[in-house]
């Protein structure tokens, strides 16, 4: 307990790992999230919001 990260994270300890690990699952998940975000936005802005009565024009 009570160690600090700085003291231990020497370059030799970590740099090797970094190159080996490609978070492809993360990229996939976040890609799906991106698509959901864009589709939901298109629905809520262009269909729901712009389709309502009494749009404020001034």
């Amino acid at each position, binding site marked *: 307990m009570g160690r600090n*990260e700085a003291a231990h994270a020497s370059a030799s300890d970590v740099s090797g790992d970094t190159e080996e690990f490609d978070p492809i699952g993360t990229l996939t998940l976040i890609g799906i999230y991106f698509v959901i*975000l864009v589709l939901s936005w298109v629905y809520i802005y262009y269909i729901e919001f712009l389709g309502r009565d009494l749009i404020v024009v001034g």
Partner: protein
Amino acid sequence: MSEAIEGDRTFADEFPAEARVVRAALLGSFLALTLGAVFGIIQTLHRTGVFRGLISSTDYYTSLTAHGVFLALSFTTFFLVGLFTWAVVRSLDRPLIDIRITWTWYGLMAAGMTMTGISILAGFTDALDMSADVLFTFYAPLQAHPMFYAGLAVFIVGSWIAGADYFRTWLAWKREHPDDRIPLQTFMVLTTMAMWYIASSAVAASVLVFLLPWSLGLIDQVNPTLTRTLFWFFGHPVVYFWLMPAYLLWYTVLPKIAGGRLFSDPLARVVFVLFLLLSTPVGIHHQYLDPGIAEGFKFISMTNTMFLLLPSLLTAFTVVASVEYGARQRGGTGLLGWLTDLPWRDPAFTGMMLAGLMFAAGGFSGMVNAGMNINYMIHNTIWVPGHFHLTVGTAVALTFMAATYWLWPQITNKPIYSRSIGLVQVVVWFVGMALMSNAMHAQGILGVPRRTAEPEYSGFDYPVMFGGFEELNVQIAIGGTLLFVSTVLFVGNLVLTMGNPKVSGLAEELPPALSGPDDAPRVLDNLGLWVGIALVLVVLAYALPLAAIINRGGLLGPGVGTYPVWFAPALDALANAATPSLGAITDAAASLVEVIR
């Protein structure tokens, strides 16, 4: 690694004095959570029309004020100071400068919140000539009892001293370690507190210069747009003040529980710096529909707000990647198959992951809130509580509860009473919030307002969509009930845990990041520079709007009256003020006044 030597000593063993403070802060936080949840269920059942027998519709606003203040200010902030005290001491591996100062700020915060809390709760009884039914945003010219404002001021001053405590401890550490990088957790604490100083200065000014003197009768009137703007100067960054401790846990504790380590320390630092820079110059996005503020200022605020999405989107990637790394260390394979190799039986892990998932959904409704003109559709509808119960109400609250299952043993040496109940608890919260929040969003699109005791009106019906108003009310009521049950499970589990005997061997080490701090440019640690830039951005964003507001309405308002909601005679006057042409409504108000008496 020194794990073999260190591994068997918990935080409570190494820093017993600090552990006591952390425990006190967390207990204060959970007391607020309990009270907040009681008001939460009362108002959920009331506004959905399921059960209105417990409070009158007038008292609804007393309950709502209590819910907002206890949860959004008290629960979050007490947890934050507890967590930060743990994080600073743990990551610097040294005690705080002077524990008496630490107890001083704790005492001030507790006293301040008690004062504010009493002034609110007194609204439920006629025995005391005191109340503060102004909601947690306290927009003038509605006026609370002076103790409400005074308590807030004391609470904020306490939090400032807490920040100073962390900064001084870090400076002392720096003298001992002149060449070391700031440990990540301390870095997160310091950037958060720097942001807090900038943000809370405005609300402190609003309270001390305008609202408190006004409630004491020293000045006659205030400028409602000015005090409102000062509130939101604070009110947006405060949401990051709630969120950043959750981020701290996602970055530094969640990867460890997942069996891995943080993906990138430098990016974590960049994210916190971005929050420090961008959190404050955006508050006007809460005032998109305010008259008296130029459209140009609103547009600038929106642009800043949209770029403030960046640190959260980056966080999503880094945190999920850290978890994926953990899963692969545990033998996970495949494009997504590794998801099954995670410790889903661990309530701390599952709770934080579900909190993160809800935050992703909240990200969407937040984008809608941020989009300047689409605000016409959802402003002040119940869509907005739907949104922030995903963010502060789950991303933050559920992360705090989940983290408690991991942290509590570290600061007490007592194992959690039942981890299975913990698992049930976090899942029930998730399900309850999914129901409640989803239905709130849908009702918001129908136009159902927030902050109202009886959202059904006599003169019209809401359009029918998504199942319609009534059906959505049922969903909200079921969701709210599940949330209340979940809170009871959490608090009950913790109380039973406190009865457990102390044991040894609970210590957990936090591993360093995959890409460590040496990879991060040194300039990231130059806090003075970032605070300087943050201040420049705040001045750029706020100097002109504030000048324009003062220019229009004056420092003390264009003849705006005073509307105390804190003593009965005032309510009388207020009912009389409604013109006779509003006959029916005035009668209703008058009979309400009767009820209050």
